[in-house]
């Protein structure tokens, strides 16, 4: 009897002491692991999608690769974890991923209550509607009483309700778990409209059986700034991810591309260029990285403009215009703080 009691109490004590999660920094964890674990979308053309050979491409994918190049020295040392909308913040909170680059809209609720911290906007998007042309609808304000397909786990439902309430219109929703199911239901005619971010609508239209039969309505009913997110409580990691994205944008502003980075390093004597390429001051030290952190980003991934052109630009399958996602010097909203 004595041994039984003591064994049980020791077991319980062990369980009780077992633990608060270990608070080592994310940078150390990533370096020790030798690989960056990045949470991405299951299939978002232009942002993160995988081809039949297992190669990931997209804007979010490139942001992850930039962080890997800066911290680990190799843009290929990334493991991509596809996440559905309901899972994404839980995965980040639990430590299963180091950063979340999953075309996630930066909103106040998400920034404050989910334990995540958004770094910087990588894509300025908005929510819109996709309708079949035969409905003869020219504006979203004509959609009174419509049935609308929407995906659960996104900020779309709330913006949709707000828009319809403001304009005193009624609507019904059919809510699905996955993007594929939502789009299948819309294209089979179950709903009269499909709502999600404009970039997703463009991708959906391309993937539909008859793209010419559908059109995107002009109304943009909400602001959806897409930004990568990190866990709260690690300021250094937050700065690293943030400034990796800023490095991509600054590189485009300074005219440095993947092709000409070595030439610029040798010949361009502008102080901004020199600092970005690690030729003059050591800016990486302030992030806990080495001097070549931003040089590697441009050399291995390119700049923001190159990534945009390749993944979703006017010449790609998605065919999206730069619009708001152009540099501030070109009339867009991308304005990265200077690296100095």
């Amino acid at each position, binding site marked *: 009897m004595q041994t039984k009691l003591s064994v049980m109490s020791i077991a319980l004590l062990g369980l009780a002491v077992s633990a*608060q999660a270990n608070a080592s920094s994310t940078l150390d964890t990533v370096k020790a692991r030798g690989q960056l674990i990045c949470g991405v979308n299951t299939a978002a053309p232009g942002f993160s999608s995988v081809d039949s050979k297992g190669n990931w491409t997209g804007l979010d994918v490139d942001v992850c690769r930039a962080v890997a190049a800066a911290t680990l020295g190799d843009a290929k040392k990334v493991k991509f974890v596809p996440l559905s909308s309901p899972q994404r913040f839980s995965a980040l909170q639990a430590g299963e991923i180091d950063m979340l680059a999953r075309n996630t809209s930066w909103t106040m609720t998400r920034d404050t*209550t*989910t334990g995540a911290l958004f770094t910087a906007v990588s894509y300025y998007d908005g929510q819109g509607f996709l309708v079949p042309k035969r409905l003869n609808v020219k504006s979203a304000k004509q959609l009174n009483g419509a049935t609308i397909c929407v995906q659960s786990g996104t900020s779309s439902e709330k913006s949709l309700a707000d828009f319809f309430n403001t304009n005193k219109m009624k609507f019904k929703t059919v809510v699905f778990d996955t993007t594929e199911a939502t789009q299948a239901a819309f294209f089979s005619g179950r709903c009269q409209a499909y709502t999600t971010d404009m970039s997703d609508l463009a991708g959906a239209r391309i993937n539909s059986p008859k793209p010419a039969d559908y059109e995107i309505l002009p109304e943009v009913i909400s602001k959806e700034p897409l930004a990568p997110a990190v866990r709260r409580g690690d300021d250094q990691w937050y700065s690293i991810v943030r400034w990796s994205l800023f490095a991509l944008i600054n590189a485009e502003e300074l005219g440095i591309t993947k092709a000409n980075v070595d030439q610029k390093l040798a010949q361009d004597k502008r102080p901004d260029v020199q600092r970005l390429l690690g030729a003059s001051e050591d800016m990486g030290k302030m992030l806990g990285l080495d001097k070549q952190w931003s040089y590697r980003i441009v050399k291995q991934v390119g700049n923001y403009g190159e990534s945009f052109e390749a993944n979703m630009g006017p010449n790609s399958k998605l065919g999206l215009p730069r619009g708001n996602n152009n540099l501030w010097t070109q009339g867009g909203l991308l304005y990265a703080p200077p690296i100095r």
Partner: protein
Amino acid sequence: MIDLRSKNKPLIGDESYRAREATRRRKEWFWQAIIFVLTIALLYAFGQNIYENLQARDIRSGFAFLSDRSSFEIGESLIPVSSNDSFGRMFLAGMLNTILVAAVSIVTATVLGVIVGLMRLSNHPLVRFLGVAHVEFYRNIPLLIQLFAVYLVITEFLPDSFDPLMFGSLVMLSKAGLHFTVPHHLALANVCAFLFALVAGYFCRRFYIQRVTSLMATLLGLGAGVLAGLFIWFVFGCVFGWSQPKMDGFMVSGGAAATPEFLTLWIGLTTFTSASIAEIVRAGILAVPQNQWRASEALGMTRLQTISYVVLPQSLRLVIPPLASQFMNLTKNSSLAVIIGYPDIVSVGNTSIVIMGQALEAIVLIMAVYLFLNLIIAVVMNALNARVTAAPK
């Protein structure tokens, strides 16, 4: 065995036995109490750990969100809800949707399951084959795939919502669902019809209970109840007028609707569960001794009479516990609604998690709802079981 506690006079016989039993029971209680306290302590430690972790990461916790404005709409609901209603009301709407589809599917699955089970025991080879085919097909394909398939078929082949198939002016079938005519003041009509159906069914059963078996009497009562309910609906319609479905821009105004999502879930759950129920019914019938069949035959009863009056009532003892299990499986399987867009409690929970960010509390609520519904099923079926297995008076 000599009891050494009392040194004065060793206990023997009955007294010794009683003393030993008392000691044994005391020891049992002591250990059970220790384990119980440790379990409670463990659960408390877990809860405390979760709470502290949430606090440390700045994640909001607590159930205060239930009174916040929900700001989302759902596709269908038994109670009127809108994006201005609270999360609590939305969860209630989701729970009612779950109960509706589960209750309706349980009834149809049982009916279909009993029929198919009896088909497998038929003398006719074609009837037997159809029974086997039904069971093997629906039992072996995962429910998720079946739901996808049914939903695809329903949404592809139903007529477009702007060009519906009309059955007179009473019923409208389109991709937006099956819209049918209902009387005005539908909620009141439903309540009156339900109450009248209960009363009519009860009295009908009482009338027949002396004349046929208890099972037959119950079925006749059920049938009478349904007819009575429909009669009340008809009366309401004649008195207050009918609400007929009509196209009104993008939506259908008037009438009540069974959406494609509801129909898919109903059909999918019914066929899938009926396969298992058919096997349970077959097992129950085969467990009734062969002599019962022979004796009924000797008395000149037809096969149908034998099954209705002699075999089925005796098979109920074996059938009811697994049947309870199948009903609970059906209720839990209804959570797959989230895949095809039916707004049940899981779907509402998922949307709420996105909007207010508290995944843990929403999941706890969903689990509590399913636990509650399944406990009700368990209690009812246990009571039924007790009645059926009661020793003859």
